[in-house]
């Protein structure tokens, strides 16, 4: 048992979970307005639990796209989870199987990154899994709550709040602690360049390509000049 690590994880994720809340509401409102029903709308958040892909799936469904296109696009958007799966695998391999397979479902950009940063200094597998659970469950809870508020309340999120800006902001805030040495800086710069340069590629594949080429390039750089 490690309640302390759970608490630290959830506290670390709290501000991100608050940032995620409005998007849960946006998805919930979109689902309620679309007429797919409250149940299927909520099922999307519970079972897929990945905001951008949920909104895309809903949009394409409403546009009358073929199911192969709607589901396929959602999966391409979520393909970056394969990268997080790889990044987390050295730590996850030390968890008991039920933990390993359960925690996988709660994987998000935020929970994965916060945990990877924590795992740099925290080596104990028990503390590690409780930290991840605390962070991931907090994000999961806020996402479900936001979805419910959107579905039931139908509350509109005003345009003037510029809530869309939270997305680049949140990932910028997470980047700073993740980029600490020359290989990481190289990976980041190359990734951004490729992502922008290949924006003509379909839904999210530019991000995937950018990240892959970024990681490959960063791996070639010698990790000297480490900053703290």
């Amino acid at each position, binding site marked *: 048992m490690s309640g302390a690590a759970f608490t630290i994880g959830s506290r670390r994720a709290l501000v991100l979970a608050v940032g995620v809340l409005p998007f849960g509401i946006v998805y919930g409102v979109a689902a309620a307005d679309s007429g797919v029903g409250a149940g299927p709308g909520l099922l999307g958040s519970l079972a897929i639990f990945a905001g951008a892909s949920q909104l895309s799936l809903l949009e394409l469904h409403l546009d009358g796209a073929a199911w192969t296109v709607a589901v396929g696009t959602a999966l391409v958007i979520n393909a970056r989870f394969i990268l*997080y799966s790889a990044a987390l695998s050295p730590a996850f391999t030390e968890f008991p199987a039920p933990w390993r397979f359960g925690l996988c479902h709660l994987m998000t950009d935020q929970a994965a990154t916060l945990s990877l940063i924590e795992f740099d200094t925290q080596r104990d597998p028990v503390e590690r899994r409780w930290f991840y659970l605390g962070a991931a469950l907090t994000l999961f809870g806020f996402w479900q709550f936001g979805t419910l508020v959107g579905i039931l309340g139908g509350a509109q999120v005003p345009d003037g709040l510029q809530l869309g800006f939270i997305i680049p902001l949140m990932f910028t805030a997470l980047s700073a602690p993740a980029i600490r040495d020359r290989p990481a800086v190289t990976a980041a710069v190359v990734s951004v360049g490729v992502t922008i340069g290949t924006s003509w590629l379909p839904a999210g594949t530019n991000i995937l390509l950018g990240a892959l080429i970024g990681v490959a390039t960063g791996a070639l750089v010698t990790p000297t000049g480490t900053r703290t």
Partner: protein
Amino acid sequence: MSFTVEVLLAALGTYLMRVSVIALAAGRELPERLRNTLRLIPAAVLPALVANALVFDGSSVRPLGPWYVAFALALLVSIRTRSIGWTLGAGMVAVWVATAVWP
């Protein structure tokens, strides 16, 4: 096809991708060089998500405006403080102010 079935298919596929490498690597000790490379993944994925959300608005390029100004400030705050809370707080205030005063 019904939305529910599409959701379940997307959920299944997404779960399989989340599990993918973790399931394959279970019980194996990865070489240190590979582990160091994997460690670069957030450093590459996160800035790509930032760039994509900042520079593009749907399928068009976002014109120079308040978002870029607010982003530059948030980036500075993030590098200086390395605090998620301060970055989010300062960035949101900056985007509101920048939007209000942008000609």
